[in-house]
């Protein structure tokens, strides 16, 4: 069963559907902050009947300085690792109060917003526990700027291979301190929580795709999860005016595949779907990497390694737990 929601097909649709801003002026994010763009689109897609919970992170520190909150929706802070618990507590309280007649019955969106450190590292167990509470409806949005940006750009498990952070500098003895490959959060959330009905990846560079995914997540009900990749000029090292370009390159090089998994059905979306269909060719990862100073110390061999890993992801990854065990699967050989 798929949900029917009005989806935007074109920019014109989008502008018609989402005119009101619920994430407004008054925030103090860096210029070119794509995480702020994500929040803006999420707030527009959710609309006024929404409670937003924000975990400690860039989007707490920069957006909710007292007197200048950007939120035109009810908003509350939760601890760095508290997003999963906060959405469950909120949704449970709304349910209890409505069941007991202490609140009028209506649909209220509950959205928990956490950065990569809060969600994928510190708060993983709470997010994971939340995604099993299928009697409550909420969306957990992980905005991923690939570092702990507000505390001075430190490494997280979401920091890509080789990237410079203040915890993973490049030195005389060790050129690459961040040797760990990035965790595959969205897939992990789907596979680990088989009753979750909607999980997606998105990016602010593609607002139509992002908007539609938020709408779907909120409509389908139960626990849902969206992971966005957010270019961050401060952490990644590029001129803020290139944020959108960098975001586009993340998708076009295939480093950031856009997909959704709805009721167990996996579907690539937008540019990623066109890449899969062969309508557009994946750009070399070098075009993305050479634009950012966090990768400035990488050699051509390092970039080739990253290219190989990205090719491998496109050519031989499967998402286990979504494909029946009884089926023999076509499993493409890796090109040597």
């Amino acid at each position, binding site marked *: 069963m798929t949900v029917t929601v009005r989806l935007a097909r074109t920019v014109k649709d989008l502008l018609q559907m989402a005119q009101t801003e619920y994430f407004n002026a008054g925030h103090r994010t860096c210029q070119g902050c794509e995480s702020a763009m994500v929040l803006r689109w999420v707030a527009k897609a959710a609309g006024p009947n929404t409670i937003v919970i924000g975990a400690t992170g860039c989007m707490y520190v920069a957006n909710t300085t007292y007197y200048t909150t950007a939120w035109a929706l009810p908003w509350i802070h939760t601890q760095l690792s508290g997003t999963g618990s906060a959405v469950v507590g909120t949704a449970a309280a709304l349910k209890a109060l409505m069941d007991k007649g*202490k609140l009028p019955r209506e649909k209220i969106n509950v959205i928990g917003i956490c950065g990569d450190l809060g969600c994928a590292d510190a708060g993983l167990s*709470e997010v994971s526990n939340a995604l099993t509470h299928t009697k409550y409806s909420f969306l957990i949005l992980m905005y991923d700027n690939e570092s702990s940006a507000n505390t001075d750009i430190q490494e997280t498990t979401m920091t890509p291979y080789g990237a410079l952070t203040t915890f993973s500098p490049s030195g005389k003895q060790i050129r690459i301190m961040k040797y760990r490959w990035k965790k595959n959060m969205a897939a992990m959330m789907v596979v680990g929580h088989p009753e979750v009905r909607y999980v997606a990846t998105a990016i602010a560079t593609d607002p139509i795709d992002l908007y539609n995914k938020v709408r779907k997540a909120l409509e389908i009900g139960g626990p849902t999860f969206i992971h966005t990749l957010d270019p961050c000029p401060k952490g990644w090292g590029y001129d803020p005016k290139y944020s959108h370009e960098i975001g586009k390159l993340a998708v076009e090089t295939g480093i950031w595949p856009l997909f959704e998994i709805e009721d167990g059905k996996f579907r690539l979306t937008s540019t990623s779907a066109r890449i899969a269909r062969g309508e557009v060719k994946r750009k070399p990862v070098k075009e993305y990497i050479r634009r950012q100073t966090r990768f400035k110390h990488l050699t051509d061999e390092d970039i080739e390694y990253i290219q190989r890993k990205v090719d491998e992801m496109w050519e031989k990854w499967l998402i286990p737990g979504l494909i029946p065990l009884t089926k023999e699967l076509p499993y493409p050989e890796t090109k040597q």
Partner: protein
Amino acid sequence: MSVSVLESKRLEAVLKGDEEVEVVGTGTDAMAYALMLADIDVTSAYPIRPYGGVMQTVSKLIADGYLKAEYIVAAHEHDQFEIVKHASAVGARTFVGSSGVGWLLAIEAIVVISTDRYPVVALIGNRALDDPGAYGVEHNDALMVRDVGWLLVWVDTAQEALDTTLIAYRVAEDPRVMLPVGISMDGAFLTHSEHVFKIPPKSKVQKFLPPYDLGNRKLHPSNVISVAPQVNEDWVTEIRKQMDEAMKNARKVIVEAYRDFAKIFGRDYGNPFVEPYMVEDADVIMVGMGTVSRPIKEAVRRLRAKGEKVGFLRIRWFRPFPTEDIIHYLSGAKVVAVVDRDYSFGSPFDGGAVYTEIRSALYEAEHRPLIINFIGGLGGREITYNDAINMFNIALDTARKGKVEQRVIWYGVRE
């Protein structure tokens, strides 16, 4: 598991009728019935002994339909306390709890519950802190949060556990207070021992406990507010000062709550903050919290029969601290002997936390008694009637000599 037929008849009686019914159950059972009567909306559970007992009974009451509440099994204690914090922010009456190191794993969430001013009520089933592992009672777990704005109360019987739970919601949710309450119950000695207690009818509870109302702080789409934005150095001082006011207000609100409780339920606890036992003319007064009262009271009775002027003062509310009562009841004595089921390493005189606080309170007294401190019963080791007699003998000896030879005595420690 479900509630027994007999019990279910009794539960129906208190939920529907006007009479209280007498049952046999543990301290945690008693608390669970109070939660049923308080009609909590959301609760979160995570296993750890000895707190776990309360959720076993709560879950049973929910499964059998006596309590309608959202019941959430959490991933760990931090999760547990964050869940209720946010449920409370939406306007739900909540309950949570833990023990020992579990309680401390939640400390970050515990702190924001009080700094954000949510009236959560929690059970601290007192347990020694690891390592080494021990299930038994020690008060250090609860005392770790003495400085973060939680009200802390120690109970001594199952009846007191039930009654105090109802009182705790009334105090916590009072608009003049709006702070969380931690109810401490001695692990095993009270949480898991069976007592006879009375369950009051819900009709009376409704007279005593108004519905939880967060007012204009309620998080709802009709009330667009931002809760706990970053204030940086601008406002922290003012916010802490407001908490201080709330904590001071609690002294008054607690008195009102016990007074109304006595009126409605007919059970009068006298002084809400402390329980004085034969202290009026006592030369030597022992002080303690929780179930240590039983062997000490027995020792007081027997020593009184022999003509010794001894007494006992049980501290019920530790936060807010009953300074006035401490001065009132203790400053007339020759010797005050504090029994601490906790220890504060490196504290001013290398003693327990209660001892340190009592010394501090008595500094303002016109007459300052001699004070000695027993560190005893750590990790759940029993303090028997004989131990209490031995401790009194040391205190009586101090009174006779008129000076303290050893301030802090680790009672019964194997050398």
